[in-house]
């Protein structure tokens, strides 16, 4: 239970930050892809750099969590499904003006159409489970 509350708190920080920086704004995603406003591209780039530096420091520190347990860094498989999935995801990103994280912040903000994107995400995940039932090698994570 303590762990679940910790995840809830990390989620709140993530959602609050996404919303405050404008990642949940349709217009900022749209203008990032038309190259009129690169604010969100800068957010993502900064997050990658800070994340990479932080991970390097953790590894230099012995690669352990605060309890002293070795970090289980989740590496996802490299295959053609990264391309197929990436293509489908990119089209969905453009249509909805959101990604799986930011749409949750949209729903919290009270954006009604975000609720439809979120319902679509659950449905798309279910469709994936239907496809994965017969094509075992698509299971990429």
């Amino acid at each position, binding site marked *: 239970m303590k762990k679940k509350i910790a995840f*809830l708190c990390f989620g*709140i*920080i993530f*959602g*609050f*930050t996404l*919303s*405050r*920086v*404008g990642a949940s704004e*349709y217009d900022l995603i*749209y203008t990032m*892809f038309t190259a009129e406003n690169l604010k969100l591209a800068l957010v*993502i780039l*900064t*997050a990658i*750099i*800070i*994340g*990479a530096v*932080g*991970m390097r420091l*953790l590894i230099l520190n012995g690669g352990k*969590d605060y309890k002293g347990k070795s970090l289980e860094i*989740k590496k996802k498989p*490299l295959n053609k499904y*990264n*391309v197929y*999935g*990436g293509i*489908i995801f*990119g*089209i*969905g*990103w*453009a*249509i*909805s003006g959101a990604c*799986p*994280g930011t749409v949750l*912040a949209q729903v*919290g*903000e*009270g*954006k*009604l159409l975000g609720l*439809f*994107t979120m319902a679509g*995400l659950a449905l*798309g*995940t*279910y469709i*994936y*489970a*239907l496809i*994965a*039932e017969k094509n075992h090698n*698509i299971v*990429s*994570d």
Partner: protein
Amino acid sequence: MKILQLIFVEPWPWWIGGIIIGLLVPAMYYFLNTALGVSTGYGNIAKLIFPKTKLKWLNSDKFKDIFNWRFFFILGIIIGGFISARLSGGRLLIIDMGIFTQSLNWPYIAYMGWFLLGGILLGLGSRIAGGCTSGHSIHGIANLHPSSMLSTFFFLLLGAITVNLIRIFILGGV
């Protein structure tokens, strides 16, 4: 109270958002030994909607307990968005969606279908690619994983192509 105004009302500059989101990656490993990621949690929601599903993937160990950490993380993001909007003083219910609904005059049900379609593609695509903007683009690239770089390249490429097609053919070039 200028500082409160800057934190809770004004939109944050890109670097504050980038630093906090970036720090979540090592912080979640350090405190919870878990990779930052959102999209797998939609499996929890799918299973909430179809609790009796026999599909193997939705019955894997990941979803044994629907109310596991992924559920709480997703719930937290919604609450975080709620707190942000309440403190900045926006409307409780927002029915429009930026440039898209401002430029068009569709019946509302068509917007619902459009965003539902976008969501379906996001859900399907992130599962096939093995992650989304959080798990692949931020967590994966920060850990220098080649699969995340490849996926993110196609996220951005198809996002840019599709938005520009939407701009020309649907929004009339706004």
